[in-house]
């Protein structure tokens, strides 16, 4: 077994793909992170305090995981779905009664989307409670708010696609609100619906937004967000050692928010 593994990880093909041997030495473990497109948004080493479960509850990571699941299930749903008026609804019925595991597929997409919204929201709340929105992470927080908005819009545009009573009236309520915006409201509503009422045109527009425009924007935004997490010095941690003088941690940290130079303190972390 061991021989096969060694032979495999030394082969030219393995090397050409992974560029390093089996990750059993610290050097190869570093390379496993460092030289992988998918893993290199992680630092090679992490602080013990930073990966404690309660630090982040991995909420951001789990939101990202939801996004992956949604992309996969969404792609499968696209194989069965036509964004045209009667068939959109009939395709839902087919998923329910004709397609093998169709209902499971649809359920998974639906519940993952709801879970993602909840996770993103709780991620925001927890980030706030930990004080991780402060310098130097202000801008990443603002990017995060953008991600929250896109996530909600994704779910909202998806709501119209099954073309049932729920979809139709949820979108009717929403676009009427858009129409209430002064001056530009009516124009924006026309642009969204591709007409004066909710029909085929609106369905097509929501479909394109839901399946192409918004997911691409979200993917780009998440990339930016994760890159910033690294550049801002990794996960926010309270100062070490905690100096609990009369004020308590939180205010102690806040008085120093501008004092430390984040760039210099991040350097060893970044290059490790």
């Amino acid at each position, binding site marked *: 077994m061991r021989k096969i593994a060694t032979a495999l990880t030394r082969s030219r093909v393995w090397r050409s793909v992974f560029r390093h041997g089996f990750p059993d030495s610290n050097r190869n473990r570093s390379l496993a992170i460092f030289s992988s497109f998918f893993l290199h948004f992680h630092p090679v080493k992490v602080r013990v305090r930073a990966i404690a479960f309660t630090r982040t509850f991995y909420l951001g990571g789990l939101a990202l995981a939801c996004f992956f699941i949604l992309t996969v299930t969404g792609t499968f749903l696209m194989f069965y779905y036509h964004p045209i008026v009667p068939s959109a609804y009939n395709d839902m019925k087919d998923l329910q009664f004709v397609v093998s595991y169709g209902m499971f597929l649809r359920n998974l997409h639906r519940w993952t989307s709801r879970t993602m919204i909840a996770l993103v929201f709780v991620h925001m709340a927890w980030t706030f409670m930990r004080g991780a929105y402060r310098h130097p992470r202000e801008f990443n927080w603002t990017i995060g*708010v953008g991600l929250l908005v896109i996530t909600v819009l994704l779910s909202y545009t998806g709501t119209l696609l099954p073309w049932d009573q729920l979809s139709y009236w949820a979108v009717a309520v929403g676009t009427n609100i858009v129409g209430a915006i002064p001056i530009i409201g009516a124009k924006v509503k026309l642009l969204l619906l591709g007409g004066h009422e909710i029909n085929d045109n609106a369905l097509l527009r929501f479909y394109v937004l839901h399946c192409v425009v918004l997911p691409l924007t979200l993917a780009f935004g998440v990339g930016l967000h994760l890159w910033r997490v690294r550049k801002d010095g990794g996960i926010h941690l309270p100062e070490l050692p905690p100096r609990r003088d009369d004020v308590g941690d939180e205010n102690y940290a806040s008085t120093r928010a501008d004092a430390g130079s984040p760039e210099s303190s991040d350097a060893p972390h970044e290059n490790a």
Partner: protein
Amino acid sequence: MSEPTPESAPERGEEESLGSVGAARVVVEEHVSDCRTSDFVDEPMLMTFPHLLVRECVAFLGLSIFLVVMSLCFDAPLESIADPTRTPNPAKAPWYFLGMQELLQYYPPIVAGVLFPALLIIALAIIPYFRVNIERPPLWKSAPWTQVASLWGVVAGLSGVFYFTGSVPIWSLMVPLWAVGLAMTAGALPWRRSRLGIWLQTRSLAFWIFAWFLLAATTLTVIGLWFRGPGWRFTLPWYDGFY
């Protein structure tokens, strides 16, 4: 605006009494302690591979199991085909919009549907830039009772706004506001030694505003989800069922 946080004021007083040499020493010591505390070098580190990756995989597996079980147990709703001539009653938005839909009962769409969400998103986006609020010392450090008075002034003012400007008084915004006001006031009480007391005392103003936002959003959503029936009338789920 952001400059001197009152908290650093005592230190400055100290510096002055020490003269310029003493002040320099204080600065140097501060700097040295900065280096010690913000350097990660002596912090215990772990290799990302495998330690962090294993944890991520476990978290991902947990999430997947939860989602699969959900999908096996509960079916996504599908009603009859869309019919523009038949308005369902009540016509509820997806749950994450119910808070907003709830507010639509009190204010015209331009306020509840456009102004409030826009203000909310802007407020959220600029939270970290509000230096004044975030870098405050404990709220009650100086003249606590004057501050308590102004706090309740603001609470009364806001309550007035929510009482009179809505079509009916908006209790779902006022009650969370009072709860937060009470918690803040509790922080002003002189209970130096207890952990809860210290925790309450050291929350910043930004924290309390955010707490109110969370409480109010939850209240509005829960009411919209379970306590609204036909005609958006108030119903009790254990009495009238769910809509």
